[in-house]
């Protein structure tokens, strides 16, 4: 499996767009919950204790959130590649 070097451009573009949009996230969205959280709030339901304590969180400030985004990107990137290697097939053996 060869890594297409052209993909570096979209990777950098994705992280650049993320870096910019994260500013707007902290200005406009950070204090507010999503649709499910708002529904829970309306119904007076509190979020329960998690059964598993995750090692990381998305962070409360810009630098932490950006770092977590980068870590998450790399984690998903790596795991998808790994799963794809298991599920995939070598290019030269297929007939599309």
């Amino acid at each position, binding site marked *: *499996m060869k*890594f*297409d070097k052209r*993909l570096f451009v*979209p*990777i950098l573009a*994705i992280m650049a767009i*993320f870096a910019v*949009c*994260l500013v*707007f*996230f902290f200005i*406009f*969205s*950070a204090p*507010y*919950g*999503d*649709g*499910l959280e*708002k*529904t*829970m709030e*309306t*119904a007076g*339901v509190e*979020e*329960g*204790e*998690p*059964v*598993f*304590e*995750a*090692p*990381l*969180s*998305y962070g409360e400030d810009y630098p932490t959130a950006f770092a*977590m*985004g980068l*870590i*998450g*990107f*790399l*984690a*998903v*990137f*790596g*795991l*998808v*590649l790994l*799963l*794809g*290697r298991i*599920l*995939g*097939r070598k*290019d030269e053996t*297929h007939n*599309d």
Partner: protein
Amino acid sequence: MHVPDGLMHPLISLVGWIIAIVVIALSVHFLNKKLPYRTLPLMAVIGGGIFVAQMLNFPIGGGTTGHLVGATLAAILLGPLAGMVIIVTILIIQALLFGDGGVTALGLNVLNMAIIGCFLGWAVYRAVPGKYQKFGILLASWLAVFIGSLACAAELAGSFVMSGGAYGITGLVAFPSMLIYHSLIGIGEAVITFGVVSYISKVSPDLIHTPAVGLWTRRKVVLE
């Protein structure tokens, strides 16, 4: 729309796990040894991109926000089976690494976002005639979020009834609240999905015109 631990009745969570395991197993079965290696880097980039996009909640008014799910986006670009691999991977990373979505509720989150988003979104997209492809992308991505929220509302209401109020949320609140919020969040999902698909099909059409995977084919995305 990530369901946390302790919100749903354990039996509802168990049903979610069973459905998720069956669908993931079938996806792996149909995808196994059919995914060309050269598609993998693109899958990985799309997965990473959807992960960071999910962190970026956008306001929908009234002090409420929503975020991209990205399952229909992944399914349109890579097919529903490859989309399932991507979205399930994201949900696992979110739950285990960042505590976003409960571990016990992971099956329900897979159902509400990955399965409905990938398969329903893909089916709607494919059902719309090719000449209305733009409308198909918008409708499929909006509907995937809306039906996903309907499923979540049903799980909340079912949990409430089964537990006598110890779990879940009464349907009188869950259905209108979830559906109203997600009908608006779905608009954001549709706009982002359409924008990304349009952009990729214009700047790097060869990147997404990769071979289809078995029966669960993608359709060539060509937006004029």
